């Protein structure tokens, strides 16, 4: 995603939109694509130095803001990979060369390089070139498998621009057709802090932006940016993001499905969003629990993240990743009171404020980063037992500590 100082906006009729690259930018985009391509085989440092000078020249030649040129260079240079251009590991080359150079009382650079070359079975010039070949700026640029066209460059820029804006947002509101309700599921599974409302015609998804939380802002910003491609290809979509781009001035950026970023980028493949490793681990444990594919089709929005079934027993699993105390409380309050019991799993490593889980919240399986299948199933067993023992009061008083991998305990917090 584009960094803050390379984000470009434009305003029409008091409405602010991203400054997309379109066909009118074709000439200078092609020139920049050509410029970057010419550096294949050279080092990253050489390219950075040259482009620093070339960027204002290109901006002046084409009458374009240098921010746009720099933004496109930022996106394009990342499509090229790089490699260490040395026959041996540079760490080894350095260790041997510096040891050889320190050996004698008088210093002879050429002789030291020659002795190191003999030990490394290299040419002295290769030793000299390889000394710091693993430095970022000394790595050699490798061409991508297929050359990047100017249309692809524009698309990549537009996507990075929008993602960069979302990463600088305090709030994002997405309105779309009710048929697009799976977007909400994706948002939940991406762990975003969101609420949604809607009727038969339209849905409205209100997502907290990274600038509205206190911890994990960069990580959350990346999660929000990664979520954005899910929206591509959705008809009748309108998104407005409350962003802080420059000089701490808040702007509301409008994005609709008619924007170039929607026209040229293919939507991502449909995915359940469920951690496939977790599903496989559940199956491998052979406890009788199975994962029901795609949950409850009759209520797609409220479909839980995971539905576990063993015979007649069904347990819904809600996985909450990024969270604030308030968000957690809201999510738990919104859980259905009827139907199969719900097991809430909370990734404690993604707490977005310093506050702890509210004292009155029970029945939460806590984990850090990775949800362990065995712990999850033990918690599901305990939950089913609790419901059978006291079907009217359901789960009150149960607390599972998933961080230790211990057996779930019956003692409340």
């Amino acid at each position, binding site marked *: 995603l584009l960094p803050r100082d390379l984000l470009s906006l434009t305003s029409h009729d008091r409405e602010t939109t991203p400054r997309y690259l379109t066909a009118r930018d074709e000439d200078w985009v092609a020139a920049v694509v050509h410029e970057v391509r010419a550096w294949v085989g050279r080092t990253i440092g050489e390219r950075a130095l040259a482009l620093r000078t070339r960027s204002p020249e290109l901006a002046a030649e084409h009458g374009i803001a240098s921010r746009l040129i720099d933004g496109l260079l930022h996106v394009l240079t990342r499509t090229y990979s790089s490699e260490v251009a040395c026959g041996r590991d540079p*760490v080894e080359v*350095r*260790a041997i*060369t*510096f*040891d*050889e*150079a*320190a050996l004698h*009382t*008088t*210093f002879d*650079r050429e002789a*030291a*390089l020659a002795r190191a070359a003999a030990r490394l079975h290299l040419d002295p010039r290769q030793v*000299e070139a390889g*000394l*710091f070949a693993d*430095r*970022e700026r000394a790595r050699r640029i490798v061409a991508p498998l297929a050359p990047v066209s100017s249309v692809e460059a524009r698309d990549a820029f537009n996507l990075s621009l929008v993602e960069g804006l979302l990463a600088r947002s305090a709030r994002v509101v997405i309105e779309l057709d009710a048929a697009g309700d799976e977007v909400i599921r994706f948002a939940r599974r991406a762990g975003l802090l969101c609420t949604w409302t809607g009727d038969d015609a339209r849905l409205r998804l209100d997502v907290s932006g990274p600038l509205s939380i206190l911890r994990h802002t960069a990580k959350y910003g990346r999660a929000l940016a990664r979520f954005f491609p899910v929206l591509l290809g959705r008809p009748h979509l309108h998104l407005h993001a409350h962003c802080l781009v420059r000089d701490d001035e808040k702007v509301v950026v409008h994005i609709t499905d008619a924007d170039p970023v929607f026209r040229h980028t293919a939507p991502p493949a449909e995915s359940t969003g469920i951690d496939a490793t977790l599903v496989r681990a559940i199956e491998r444990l052979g406890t009788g629990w199975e994962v029901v594919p795609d949950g409850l089709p009759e209520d797609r929005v409220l479909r839980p993240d995971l539905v576990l079934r063993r015979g007649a027993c069904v347990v819904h699993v809600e996985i909450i990743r990024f969270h604030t105390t308030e968000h957690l409380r809201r999510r738990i309050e919104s859980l259905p009171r009827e139907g199969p019991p719900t097991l809430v799993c909370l990734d404690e490593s993604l707490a977005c404020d*310093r*506050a*702890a889980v509210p004292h009155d919240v029970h029945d939460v399986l806590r984990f850090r980063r990775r949800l362990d299948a065995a712990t999850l199933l033990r918690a599901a067993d305990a939950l089913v037992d609790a419901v059978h023992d006291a079907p009217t009061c359901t789960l009150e008083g149960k607390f599972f500590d998933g961080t230790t991998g211990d057996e779930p305990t019956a003692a409340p917090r």
Partner: protein
Amino acid sequence: VTSLRIDFDRGTLRLDGAAASSSLEGVGVLYDERSNFHRAPAYRYQSVVERALAREITYEDVIAREQLVMPAAIAPPLLRPYQARAVESFDDFGRRGVVVMPTGSGKTRVACAIMARASCSVLVLVPTRALLEQWCNVLRTFYQGPIGVVGDGTVRLESLTVMTFESAYRRLDVWGHRFGMIVIDEVHHFGSGVRSEALEMCTAPVRLGLTATAPHPASPGEARLRDLVGPVVCEVAIGDLIGNHLADLEIVRIHVALTEAERAAYQRNLAPFDRIRRQLRSTDRSLTFTECLQTIARMPGGRAIVAGMNRATEIASFPLAKRRMVYRLLQEHRADRTLVFTAIGEHAYAVASDALVPVITAETNRHERASILDRFRDGKIRAICSPRVLNEGIDVPDANVAIIVAGSLGQREHVQRIGRILRPRAGKRATAYELVTLDTIDEALTRARRRRLAPQGPAVTHVS
């Protein structure tokens, strides 16, 4: 009947009871509407307790009850006279304050002596993972009990625990009340920035800060440290110890000149900045260099002007003459152990490439850095080049020659660098070469950074 209950809650003091509102004004107590009780920053614990005692309030102290207990005593180390004076002075100031002593003068021993006197659980905060290990090694020589470590992937809490700054920032909201004493190495890092919240969250009544460079008097950083840790209770300058408790030091200042091409490039890059700075100073003579820099950066086209000034500084920091001089000095001191300090990484790599000496920069990984330092310690290599990484926070083996090519962080950096060669050894005479580019900004930077060594500093030889 108790009328005040003092407890620890998420990095703050929780104060319950009738006396909480009426009797504790002026010690940072506020009413928290969200939780319906009074709160105060945790570091005000001692003040709250003292106020309660002064007002004869009956209180229940949950924090004192939950403090960790030392299973063994810390053996007091033998101290040199100036170290003993530092310990006495710390006691005189009510066991809260900052001890300023040069690198290699035994700050750690002073801390151990104070810990031995305090006889309570101790938390030691260090800025880097390298210092984590270094502190544990020193503490083991004076303390037989288990030593806790929090940082570098380890989480083990004991009554004597060493913790990195980063871990403290993330964890003291839970553990901030478990210690009776806190020792903060390289305490100058807490003069500003959000990391100082770590100290706010700690209730320890005994608070000791250690540094080689005292914060500027009356600066915001000094005020912040005074509040969180205490005042400077003892300051020992390098000049006080050179020749006695630190190695004898000679400073050789070598003046070099720019080539014609370098001079032209230097003036071309600096001229716009210099012109505007003169205009600003003509209207307000009190403007400092930094204030001018900030004002110019905010002007239209100011960034380009500041970038030009930075390029000029870079030219003056490492002209061809300095590059050749470093090469020559490294050959002259092949029998010595030499540390070369540059302003930026690129210059360090240039020196390393010319003279085939190892370089330690931010790009050097941990294993390679450890390997370089080990080989330097063993004498297999005789010189190391580095921009800032060796300034502090790494246990650098003994060296006796420093070549200061240029610096960008002022007095604090300079004192730390000189300190690297002052570790005492019988018959040792340390030499610091300071390379200065004539008629450039480099001269002003050199003058500014050496103020802290003067006036009782070491002898200086000038060479052109």
